[in-house]
């Protein structure tokens, strides 16, 4: 088989289809991962004792559970209690749960970095607790959390490849299928690696611009 034909006729179409699935996984997981992460960090920081403990336990559980195991529980374990998810849905839910736990820690760190004086000052001006969080703490905290959150987003790009263990044919799964069929492991995995590198590089550059764009002039860290 001539290499040129293999790359244009077989490898690129297969990887493009896989890439579409990978992007779908990321686009569906990341926003909810962020929202749930914000929710958990707020619950832990400002919730009552019970809510705070629940959030803490959630983070401990997810951080202590290998993502692959979590995905297997969602996909192969849940049907025994009557919940049958599709492979794609199980993957997205697993990614959201995992992404949120780590995001919440980055955001909590950023919340802690906002000085208490600001909260006290805001309350002195008559703001409610929720107003303080929404108007004073979160806008600063989320900006400061961007580097950490982008890290987690990049992890998400890469660990989305675990979905192929649940039969979702995303980028790395599509590559593996081609590699197995044509025994072209080196060519395929180099190509797959280049695509992931491109995705991650794009994200890194995009985050850099995002950080600049949302920066508040004169805000001192």
């Amino acid at each position, binding site marked *: 088989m001539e290499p040129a034909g293999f790359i244009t006729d077989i490898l690129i179409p297969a990887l493009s289809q896989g890439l579409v699935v990978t992007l779908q996984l990321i686009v569906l997981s990341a926003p909810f991962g962020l929202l749930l992460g914000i929710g958990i960090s707020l619950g832990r920081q400002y919730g009552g004792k019970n809510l705070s403990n629940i959030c803490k336990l959630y983070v401990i559980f997810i951080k202590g559970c290998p993502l692959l195991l979590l995905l297997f529980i969602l996909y*192969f374990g849940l*049907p025994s209690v009557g919940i*049958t998810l599709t*492979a794609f849905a199980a993957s997205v839910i697993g990614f959201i749960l995992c992404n949120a736990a780590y995001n919440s820690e980055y955001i909590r760190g950023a919340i802690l970095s906002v000085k208490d004086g600001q909260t006290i000052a805001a309350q002195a001006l008559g703001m409610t607790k929720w107003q303080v969080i929404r108007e004073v703490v979160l806008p600063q905290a989320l900006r400061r959390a961007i580097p950490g959150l982008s890290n987690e987003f990049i992890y998400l790009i890469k660990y989305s490849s675990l979905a192929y*263990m649940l*039969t979702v*044919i995303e980028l790395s799964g599509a590559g*593996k*299928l081609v590699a*197995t*069929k*044509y*025994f072209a*492991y080196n060519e395929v995995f180099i190509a797959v690696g280049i695509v992931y590198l491109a995705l991650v590089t794009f994200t890194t550059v995009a985050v850099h611009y995002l950080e600049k764009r949302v920066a508040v002039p004169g805000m001192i860290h």
Partner: protein
Amino acid sequence: MNQRYCISLVVVLLMTVLVLSTGCTSTTPQAKTYVVGIDAEYPPYSYIDPDGNVTGFDVESMRWIAAKEGFNVTFQPTAWDGIIPALQAGKIDIIYSGMTITDERREKVSFSIPYLKINQSVAVHKEGNYTMDDFMAGGLIIGAQRGTTGAIWVEENLIETGKMPAENLKVYDNFPLVITDLAFKRIDAAIYDRPPLLDAIADKPLVIIDPQIDTHEEYGVAVRKDDTLMLDAINKGLSSLMQDPYWEELKQKYGLI
């Protein structure tokens, strides 16, 4: 931290490393040991028994041949879809695990003389009323293990002929996962080599539907292309084994007759 405490910690760590590494180098040279790559979830050919020992028709055959030809073997469970690269990279020396001889594989490895003939079979859930006609018409969601001849058969005969959309073939990392999903009815059918499929559906609410798909596949032992010495030894050993009464005994034991 106290500096003296630090130093003593480092010393203890270094000593541990030293002790462990001398432990590693103290192996005595013996007759050469070859590593046999197997799919460890492939009963009755190669699998791990409840006590944790590697066993199966192919495993016992290999042990017999090794003893006959005067070398030692150890068995290395290896991911099936990566087993040929593992052989090429020298991680394993032999693949003896129900591998079908195909032209594509023959480009990468040398095969021994064929030692078994097998066909593909299809299993469905007992509660479904699917027939082989449904399967052949491409109307079912089919599960298969990635890299197996069953998966390749579906691609070539159902997908590439346009009978079935590509996404209706679900490929899994190993066969037990296919069977798990079939039992949940997430997929309609599973395709696999007949003897291990029989083994896999035992005690599950699944049945094999007939007729089997006559692919006339033959199993062979694979070695690296440049490893002619090993190929000769395997061929010689296999020929002796197939003439020995132990061959029939093994077939009987693993239900291959």
